[in-house]
């Protein structure tokens, strides 16, 4: 699987600068349906996460709620599952979502990330309006995106989930928008 960033001349900047990383190879899956929250509970995961919130489950990764019956399970430090997906129900009223296949996962870090994203996205992603744990399902550079604000390796980051078919386009738009912030970057 190729990184959408591979063909773009991108280098990360310093600690102050913005860094865009490709997590397409990291593990993610989803579950959806009226039985989705019961399924999470049966696995010892919190199912009471409000929609558009993301919860850090420590070594079990992140649980992101996109609605009351759709949850994404994200593990930035684990490789994508080699298990073949099966479209059959996971439990009564709970079906798998092929997040690994449907959505690319990019991660943006660096202090001016909200200011940079304001060039591409109409949602206020500043800390005041979009604190840690918040999720926005919105548009970025004219394409749909899910933006999650969470900690990763002791740093606040934005995880960006865009349609897999748009991964290269989205990465290009992000890197272009980053150029004015990254003196040592692109």
């Amino acid at each position, binding site marked *: 699987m190729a990184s959408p960033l591979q063909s773009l001349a991108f280098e990360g900047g310093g600690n102050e600068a913005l860094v865009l990383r490709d997590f397409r190879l990291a593990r993610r899956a989803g579950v959806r349906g*009226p039985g989705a929250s019961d399924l999470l509970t049966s696995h010892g*995961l919190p199912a009471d996460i409000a929609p558009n919130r993301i919860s850090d489950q420590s070594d079990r990764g992140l649980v992101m709620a996109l609605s009351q019956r759709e949850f994404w399970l994200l593990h930035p430090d684990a490789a994508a599952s080699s*298990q073949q997906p099966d479209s*059959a129900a996971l*439990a*009564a*009223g709970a079906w798998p979502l092929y997040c690994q296949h449907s959505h690319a996962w990019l991660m943006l870090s660096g202090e001016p990330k909200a200011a940079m994203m304001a060039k591409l996205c109409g949602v206020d992603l500043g800390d005041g309006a979009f604190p840690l744990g918040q999720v926005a399902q919105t548009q970025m*550079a004219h*394409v749909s995106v899910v933006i999650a604000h969470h900690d990763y390796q002791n740093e606040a980051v934005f995880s960006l989930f865009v349609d897999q*078919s748009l991964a290269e386009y989205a990465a290009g738009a992000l890197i272009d928008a980053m150029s004015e912030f990254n003196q040592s970057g692109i």
Partner: protein
Amino acid sequence: MTRGRLPAPFGQHIDRERPVTFTFEGETISGYAGDTVVSALLGEDRWLLSRSFKYHRPRGPLSLAGHDANTLVQTPEAANRLAEELPAEDTPVVTGQNYWGSLDKDRFSLLDRLGRFLPVGFYYRAFFKPQGIWHFWERFIRAAAGLGVANLAVQPTYSDKQYLFCDVAVIGGGPAGLNAALTAAEGGAQVLLVDENPYLGGALTYHRFDTAGTEAGPCLEQLRTAVTAHSGIRVLTDATCNAWFSDHYLPVFQGQRLFKVRARTCVLATGSSEQPVVFRNNDLPGILLCSALERLLMHHGVAPEQPLVVLAGNDAAYRTALTALDAGLTVAALVDLRPGANDPALTSALTEQGVPLYTQATVYQAEADASGTRLAAVRVHACSDEGTVGDDLAHIPCGLLAMSAGYMPAYQLACHGGAQLSYHDDRAGFSLSNLPQGMLLAGSVNSLHSLEAVCADGRNAGRAALEQLGLDAGAVEATECSERVNHPWPIFKHPKGREFVDFDEDLQIKDIINSARLGYRDIQLVKRYSTVGMGPSQGRHSALTTARLIARATDRTVSDTGVTTARPPVKPEPLGLIAGRRFHPIRRTSLHDRHLTLGAQMIPAGSWRRPGFYGRPEQRLAAIAREAQAVRSGVGMIDVSTLGGIDLRGPDAAEFLNRIYTYGFLKLPVGRTRYAVLTNEQGVVVDDGVAARLGEDHFYVTATTTGVDRVYRDMLRWNTQWRLELDIANVTSAYAAINVAGPNSRAVLEAAGCDLDLSAAGFPYLACREGQLAGLPVRLLRVGFVGELGFELHVPSLMAATLWDSLMAAGEDYDLQPFGVETQRLLRLEKGHIIVGQDTDGMSHPGEIGLNWAINNKKPFFVGGRSVTILAGQPLKRQLVGFTLGTGAPQPKEGHLVLRDGAIVGNVTSCEYSPTLDRIIGLAYAHPSDSEPGGSITIRTDDGVCVAAEVAALPFYDPDNARQTLCALKQPRPAWPAPCSRWHSRAAATRLWF
């Protein structure tokens, strides 16, 4: 002549250590860094800057605030640029515009003498009769119209947009805005302060608020320091807020960026526009507003040597005269329209310095020098408050006239929000009311003019903003300002005219009055008829005068007459800023790299990129023929990942599909597919696909590449009403899809390793299965879009490349050929299959396109069913038919017209040369009477050549469907597990990976 630049505190904006030069009209002009093009030109006593729009009269600076058209110039990059906004340092070449010959000697200035033949509404009246006369004059008028010249070779610059979010947006960085921003920020709000000037301070940077001139400087210093140091305030200078939209959505442009500001509250501290006095030749270069002279002195230190006359309608003009005296200018006279100054100290200060005062007097006429391009003298007459002119009092030689008839609030942004601007005849003043929720006013836009009142009003606005944000606001200060700044009638008609009301449009007093005489009583009609206020200054200096003139001409008060409506934008803005950075999303399938490796020529399909064919562009037709031949005689495969995919799960999934699509789905067996046609409520076919029943409560539905988003949206919308028990998920990107088609397709799949029975008996036509292929989980649909035995393989998208490679390897022995979209279009056309969107349009209903067979008339409801039934009961107006032509005939193109007795009855929707049939084949809308096979239709091709095409029965190829069904056998319904609950589950165990 100028006396060189003035020392500090004059010339605050220039760096005297950094001289700069540029050329204007080919002449080298010297100035300093910080100079604008205008200030540098005036520094060299160059006052003629432009020619007027209609009469080509000489024009010089009026406002020096970027609020008028008198300083429009041309640069190599762009026309119509405001010279006071162009830094001299960054603008090496400047020329005038709108002249014939030279700026100084414009041959078009002859038009000024022909003014009597160019009355108001000239264009409307002169070219109305006789019919067609406009076409004669149009070429001359268009050649003369416009101001500058667009550089069509200029390279576009990079523009982009950015959102900005804040609690309080303060528009205007003058004393009111600075106080409002500071108060709001100190109360805990995040503040955005926007100012169109390069420096904060507004009038504090140039205006004298007291007789001694000691108040403004310290006030500016204190406010500017506090604001710039405050972490809660973001300052945007050189930035223009060009509109106010609902919920405080503010477009602000700065440089090459358009900020889309989202504020919770908005404080308008936009100030006010100084008003000119209207008298004969009030447009001569050398006549400018008092504030413009103050800017020239205080910002740029330019001090003309010629004597100055000040024409005052208020006390502020007296203070301008005092500032001019401080700068060493010769003030030849102060002419006051009123009986005298309200503040006696001002009168004393001027008389003590020997300035002659003329009260209850006006400049009745300005006179030009020998060149006709510069003020040389003014004639002063006695006057009354009603505009009547009395005795000739004096003839005063001068090169400079500064005037102030009053101030009009910069009301544009407030009016964008629906605010009402009211004029009060008793005090000749304005007020703004009916402000939208969350909009606040501060300062002179709120009709306050003393510095103390303006600052207090700013602080109050900051407090009001805090209160609206739910923050602690503190006590409101009292604000009072009794200063009367507007003269009630600063308009002095002259028998010889040339008293300009609107400088942009060259409109005189008589033009406005004549508009009323012609019946245009309403101020909005006057605007449209006369074009007053429609130039770049957007009525800033003409709206009030026009209202006064119309009020008098129609025997009404000014308040009854009103002023014209202000609409966005406030100032002209480059189109590049509105366009911003261009975003053109491009979608790539997970097989994109495979296609490139195989030499595919990629073509757009909506936002996707798909292979058109494989091979070199110059061999396009041969490549398509080769690929088609492979599918017809062997096997081919095509990437159809762009097809939409929607999963519908739940006990009501079948019922939902039954309501959405035209066909019946309640009894569709598990393991079968059915063609699915979607009509809208008007009965128009809007999409189609295949619905595969994978389980009792699980359907997988495909939709067209460009239609899936709409289909998904419609499904969600309908189920919001129906509230059926099912889940709808758009899984388009989760699955890639490959269609393997051709007589050997089954063999290739078997060679790739499939755990399903692929035989005709085990996997009949229109069946669907889930299984393993090449070790991958695959949904298989046996469909025949291209008219051959075929399997559509849907696989999780990141596995598509592996599947593709496996199929390519397995197909080696069968000479498997990948084929592209162009080949697919040919093959499906041979089979007579339509493409929704290509062979249909916004009017196509099932009866027109031969899809009545896909309608289930027995079910009680489907979306659009009622309309389809009604349409079916009416005679057809057109019908989609197949046609053929011999290979020697001109090949019609999509869109070519179908004619019948010379009338248009339809158009060609698809047309290709079929190598299989060795004929040109196509689909076209034709008159229903011509739809019988064997008949003929007339198609007008390129260059008007008409061809007679033979109507053919569809499909053109394999009419018995023998090839795609290939020994189809009726199969028993497969055994699937029974539902274990209303929400069906067939999972033995959960398989979450974490």
